[in-house]
Every structure is written in C-alpha cells, then in structure tokens.
C-alpha cells in the first residue's frame, strides 16, 4: 500500500520533512519510488511566483533539445537548479544525467493573453516536451511546467533518493507539499505512473486501487482536453476529474466529492439539493470512482484536501495546528512531523467527508455531502 504525506505550512519547509514522514511510515511501503509536489515555494524559487517552472529529468541530449525548444519559442531562463549526481545511484535508481528545475520568463507576446489562454499554453508546452521525450526514446521526462510548482519523481527508496540528489543541500523550500513513497503497482512501472499527478495547478495522489479506471479514462480522454493523457496509473484520473470539475464545470471540492462518490439514489431523495445533485450524478456518471481510495491533493489556490471514496477502506488522517497542517496515510507520519498538535482534534475523514485546509492554513475545515454547498456551483 502506498504511503502518502501532505503538508501545508505558513513557513517554508524543506521537502526532507515530508520524505522523513514517509520514512517513518516505511513499514507499509516498499521504498520503490518517490514522488514530490512542491508549491507555494520559498528558498531560491521564492522570487518567481508568476513564472512557470519546468520540472523534469533529462539526458545531456535532452537538455540541449529543451534549450533549443524553449529558446525558439521565446522563453527566457531566469533561474535554475540542475542536479547532476556524481555518486553511484542507490539500488534500483537509474543513473540520470540531470534533474532540472528551471524558471522561465514566458514569451513577451503572452503577456497580453488571458490568464486561461496562458495557462493552457503552459500545459501544452509541458505536453509537447513530454511527447518529445517519449518520441526520442527518453531524452526527457517532464513532470510539470507551472508557476510556483516543482515536481520530482524517481525510482528507489525515498530517503536514499533524497540523499543521493542532495535535496537537503539546495535551498528548495515550499509551504505546501505532497509526497508519495512507492511506484505504481497496478500497471507498468514508469515515472509517469508515479504519484502525485499534476495538471494546471491541480495535483493529487492516491492510496488505493481504482477499479472503475477504464471507463473513467475513456470518458476523460474523449473530453477534448489535451492534458487528459497518460493514464499509466489508474490514479491519474483523480487528478483529471478534479481538473475537469474546476476548469470545465467551474466548481470546487464539494462538487468533486459529489462527482466521484455521489450519494445513492435513495439518499438523494432525502437531500435538500437532491434534484440538482441528481443531475450532477447523471451527467458525470462515468466519473464515479470505485475501489478503495484515499485521495489527497492541492487545488490551484493551494487549498490542501483529502477525500475518501465511498467505501472508506483506506487510511487517512488530518491534524495539525494553526499555520501547520498535514494529511497522512498513517498517524505515525503525522506524529513525527507535528508532535505538538492537539491530537483530540485529529480527524479521519469518512465516506461522506471532504476535509480541507485553505491557503490561510488557519484551520481544518470539514464538509460532508449531506450539507449544502459552500462554494459556488
């Protein structure tokens, strides 16, 4: 079973804290991989809030291709961290030429574009680079290209990979993070199958198995959204459903929860918004998830959230103190990172719950599907 750790803090933290939490929970994961999502960055990336950051793994050839691609399109590199490991990689980790996190100034003509259009172009740039890497046999693997976001994925034990890459030596800090400690087991092992998944500011990771994966994938793939590709993991659809809810339907977490785990027909008969929720359930029927799943992630506005699927067979606990909250798949992870919290306020979301911590990191908010919407719908 995957181990997941998500944290949001008023003060920037080192990603090592999340990886250490994973390490505490190691009993339950096989140390086969690591995935990191960092946003609301501090440290040396703090000054580039509005510039897209490219995160990926490159061969030397890949770096050249990237440079040529970005330059041709008018991107200007403003800052970058390139990790070129000199030591031998830990067992299971392939040798890579470079791990790159590069901040770009986007082309001048993009300045006048609407925010939506610019955000679409960020995504398309990422997809084109990713495709280039696939077509040329792996010169690059691209995880994200988005303002104020850094991602890293690698095969191997999370702590060993972190030591190998010297993550603690760089001034890469973030206020909000997702960390996951295992490779995908349901389908072929590839870094694109490693959680967390990211699309246009939406990032999620999942503990579980989505047995409704194929019909959901078919539905998303036919939405005419260029970013709905990949699906080397059955969990990637959770990210894309959140994206679909946010970008296409213009709704938030409550709607997301009602889409992936709608109330039963007879429950809707008793719900004050039953008629409208029934419409949502009907129209988004192919997005109903199945299997045991615990989904945690971040929205584009840096809201951290966790939801369970309607069977609630996966662990997930939320706790913390004002200014510092975490969601962990195991309580020991939470204990390690925030030992001085009021544990009586810890919360384990059940099948109807949505739990989230807003960008102010002031409190844990709970909402369940029997309540009316607090966000616009």
């Amino acid at each position: 079973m995957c181990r997941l750790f998500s944290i949001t803090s008023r003060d920037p933290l080192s990603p090592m804290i999340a990886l250490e939490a994973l390490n505490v929970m190691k009993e339950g994961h096989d140390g086969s991989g690591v995935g990191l999502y960092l946003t609301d960055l501090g440290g040396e990336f703090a000054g580039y809030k509005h510039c897209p950051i490219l995160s990926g793994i490159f061969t030397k050839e890949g770096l050249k291709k990237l440079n040529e691609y970005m330059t041709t399109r008018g991107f200007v590199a403003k800052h970058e961290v390139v990790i070129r490991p000199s030591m031998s990689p830990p067992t299971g980790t392939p040798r890579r030429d470079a791990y790159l996190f590069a901040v770009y100034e986007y082309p001048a003509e993009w300045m006048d574009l609407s925010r939506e259009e610019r955000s679409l172009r960020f995504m398309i740039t990422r997809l084109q680079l990713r495709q280039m890497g696939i077509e040329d046999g792996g010169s690059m693997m691209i995880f994200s290209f988005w303002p104020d976001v850094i991602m890293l994925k690698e095969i191997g034990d999370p702590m060993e990979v972190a030591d190998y890459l010297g993550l603690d030596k760089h001034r890469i800090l973030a206020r909000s993070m997702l960390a996951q400690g295992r490779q995908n087991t349901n389908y072929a092992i590839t870094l694109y199958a490693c959680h967390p998944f990211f699309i246009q500011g939406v990032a999620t990771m999942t503990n579980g198995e989505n047995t409704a994966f194929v019909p959901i994938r078919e539905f998303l793939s036919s939405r005419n959204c260029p970013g709905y590709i990949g699906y080397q993991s059955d969990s990637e659809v959770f990210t894309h459903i959140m994206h679909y809810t946010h970008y296409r339907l213009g709704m938030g977490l409550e709607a997301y929860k009602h889409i992936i785990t709608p109330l039963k027909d007879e429950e809707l008969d008793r719900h004050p918004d039953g008629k409208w929720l029934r419409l949502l359930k009907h129209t988004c029927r192919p997005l109903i998830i199945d299997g045991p799943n615990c989904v945690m992630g971040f929205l584009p506005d840096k809201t951290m959230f966790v939801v369970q699927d309607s069977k609630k067979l996966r662990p997930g606990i939320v706790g913390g103190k004002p200014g510092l909250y975490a969601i962990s798949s195991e309580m020991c992870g939470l204990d390690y990172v925030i030992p001085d919290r009021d544990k009586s306020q810890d919360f384990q979301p059940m099948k109807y719950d949505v739990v989230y911590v807003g960008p102010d990191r002031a409190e844990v908010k709970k909402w369940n599907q029997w309540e009316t919407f607090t966000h616009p719908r």
Partner: protein
Amino acid sequence: MESMGNLHPSTLSTKDLHWRILWSKEKCTLCGRCTAVCPVQAIELGVHRKRAVNVSLGIKETPATAFTVYHGIDQRTDAAYACIGCAMCNLVCPNEAIIPVHNDEIDKQRFHINTGGVPRRRGGRRNSPGSLLDQIKFVRISMLTDPALDAGRHEFELRTLLGRILPAEEALLFSRENGWIPPVREIYPLLIGSMSFGALSPTMWEGLQMGIAYLNEELGMPVRMCTGEGGCPPRLLRSRFLKYVILQIASGYFGWDEIIHALPEMKEDPCAVEIKYGQGAKPGDGGLLMWYKVNSLIARVRGVPAGVSLPSPPTHQTKYSIEESVAKMIQSMYMAWGFRVPVYPKISATSTTNAVLNNLTRNPYAGGLAIDGEDGGTGAAYNVSMDHMGYPIASNIRDAYLNLVKIGKQNEVPLFAGGGIGKNGNLAANAAALIMLGASGVQIGKYAMQAAAGCLGSETDRCNVCNIGLCPKGITSQDPRLYRRLDPEKVAERLVDMYLSFDTELKKVVAPLGRSTSLPIGMSDALGIADKSAAERLQIQYVV
C-alpha cells in the same frame, strides 16, 4: 409395373422427422391424456393388428396364425402434424410411457414444411445453441491492493439510466438558466423487452405486470417492461403502474388509438416510449400477429377487427429516411407527454448500427438506443429470418459503445442490448458481459418466458409454436383453454425469484471485480475470452 401410389415425395417415416415419439406399450394405461394435450395432434390413437404364429408341441396340430389387436399411440408423419418436441405428452402421462426424442440424424421433414409454397414460419428462438457471451470470462479479479468486495454484505448501486443525458457543462448551464433538461429514468439494468399483449397471453402479461409491480413497490427494484407493439390494456394505461411500463410504438401503430385517448386520464407518465424500427429475430421484417391469436380482446386493445392477421410493415409509413423518421417520431412522442417521457428507438443489430447511432447523437432528444441482436426471439417469423438474418449483439454493442467513446458521448446516449442474453441459462454473466462491453442495460424476453412461465423452447427446435396460438403452457396463446393453464400469480412469483437471483448473481460478478458504486458500463478491462479473433474484435483480453 404398378406405381407406388401411396408414396409421394413428401411421404415421411418417423425416422425422417425431427422429433420421434417413443412410447411404451407396457407402461401405457391408454388414458388418452397425451393425445388430448398434444398441441399439434402429432399423436393419435393407434389400433394395431398383430399376427402371432402358434406352434403346438404335438404333431397332430399344424401351426396356425392368430391375430390380436392392441391399442396405443401412432405418430403422424405428415410434416404439417410433425411432433414439435414440446413433451407435454410426457408431462401429462401418469406412467412415463411416452416421450419425444431427437432423431439420430438431421431430419427430412425440413425439406417439406413448405406445402403450398409457404416457407416455414414459427415462433421462438434461433435454434443455435452457441453463445459468444457464454465464452466471456471476468478476469480482472481485485486481488491487488485489497481483497475483493463481499457480494452479500457490501452496498451496491446497480441502477442504470434511460433517457438523454446532457453533457455536464450543458446540464449545469441549463439548470442555471432554467433550460429544458431531458427526462431521465433511473431503472434496473435488466429490462423485460418488448413482448406484446397479443403475442403473450393475458395471463402471462398479467403475471409479468404483477411481478414488476411487486419488484418495484415491495422490493425497491425499479424494473421496467416494454409493451411491444400491441398497445396496453386500458386499465393499466389509467393506473399508477403505468410508470413501470415502456410503451412501444411500431410501424403498425397497433394500440396507439387507445393510448392517445387515454392520455388525459393517465395518472402517471409511462417510463419511456420505445420506437421500434427493427428487432433481432426478424431484422428488417415487420411484426406479425397471426390471425389465430387476434381474439376480440386483442382486437379491442389494438383497435382492429378480430380474426385477421396483423402484419406491421417493415418500415414506418412516415419514413423517408431514418434521420427524418427518428427525428419526427421522437419529437411527436415527446410532445404527447409534454417532454416529460424519454423516447428512444430500437433497431435490429446491423452493420449500419453506427450510422443510426451517429444520427441519434446529433438529435438532442434521442433518449437512448436499444439494439436487438440476432439471437432475439419472436412470436412469429419466417424460419429463414430467424435463423440467418441479423448481427451478433456482442460485437454490435461494442462497436456502438466505442463509437460513442470516440465522439465523447458514451454517457449521453445509453445503449441497451438484447438478443440471446441468458439463452443457455447464464443470464447474469451474459448481462454483465454486455454491460462491460458498453451496454447501459439489457433487455430479455425468452429468458423471462422460460424462468417465469416455464416456456418449453430450446435451442434445438423444441416447441416453437408461439405463432399459432397453441402454446401448450399458455404463454403465447389467446385460447382460454390454454392460457388458463398459466396462473398469473405464479408467474409473478417466479419473475420475482428470477430478478432476485439475477441481482445476487450480478453482485457475485461485480464484487470480485471491486465494483459496487456504479454499474460497470464499459469496464472492458475486466473481460477475457479464449478466442483470439473474438478478443481482438471486442477489444478485450485474450486469455488461455
């Protein structure tokens, strides 16, 4: 030389027949029940003269011939009276003295059932025991991250939708702006397909309706039944139970005068309206209720004279093209109930299904598409239509679903599959396979007749006299002497049994796949088959 005057080309022996009657003189009590019950008079009283040679032991008396007579059964060999294998004789025999059996080779009677130049017509099924659906296995057992679900204890939501479902973006916009949102029904995914009041006997229809009412009102299972083309009894039209009924309109419009006149008095809207353009048993052919079955009650419900054959034309009179016809009829039917009732067409499975389907996707009113495969049954059809026309349902439904996936409308136009589901008794497995191939639900007919009423039909040409009103079980007869054999209460009871066991079996299929929150429509990764070409054609796993 004298010609063999009594031997003509169609003279057959019992060896030449499809079914041969075996009769035991020792066991027979000569009660006569078998000859009385035989629906086709295939057997009659036989008076047999028997010669015996008596040879005494002494030498004085010469051997002599003695004649005795015994009574028993004669099987008629005229093809028009050939045994149909229904085995009612066996059912009524107190001593198990009689039983029909298949002859040991392909019969000769088939070459002679066209006396007068009329080809064989019959009811029933395709007489093809093979089933691709039976070969499909469910291979994606959830063993990976969690044990499979418990079919007996988990909660399952296994309903489906019938009606046009808008894309979410449009639905939310229309909801905000008070636009028209098409009616959608939440129903059980196993529907009783169109079998008309007329094709079925009154007791059978009543039994099915009672069973459905019980399933809905006592057990909370939203089961629906389609009327077929034959209208709907006036009291049902005016009752609250109409909401469990899908009214069918076909090219003969039989019964629609009554339906239209009942509109102002309806307490409930029907579940939906099905426009029949074709059926799997006799694709491209019209409906047919033969005169034997058109009694005064049927005639009244259908708005026709009694005692005449009622052939519906293959095409709708208004039809210039399927686009126009579908569009016109769908609109008209929607208007009749104030746009509150979903309307959808039913077609025979065909290599042109996707053309029809693409049209429907462009028609914002089309509430689904029912596709009836080659194994569909019927009350009456030409033999050649039943046996040789049509398209298998599995690949047709798969093509249709993948076509919808390609254009992104797989949730908008629900597909319903029919034809041969459960033909060998594997109802839940067949239904689940079709759902995972892309159907939103399945329609059955023959299975319900067998399970709920004891239909004797089989895939080896047994009985098949649904067309002439002689159904020995009273299921498809309009003769009160026959249909009184069927107790509607018992039919209802059996129907409920059938649905409950189906429900359990369906859970036993989906639970190990880790599915419980929604019907696994299009979950093709769960399917496998040990036939490589079928696997490729259906885009499922090849497993050996």
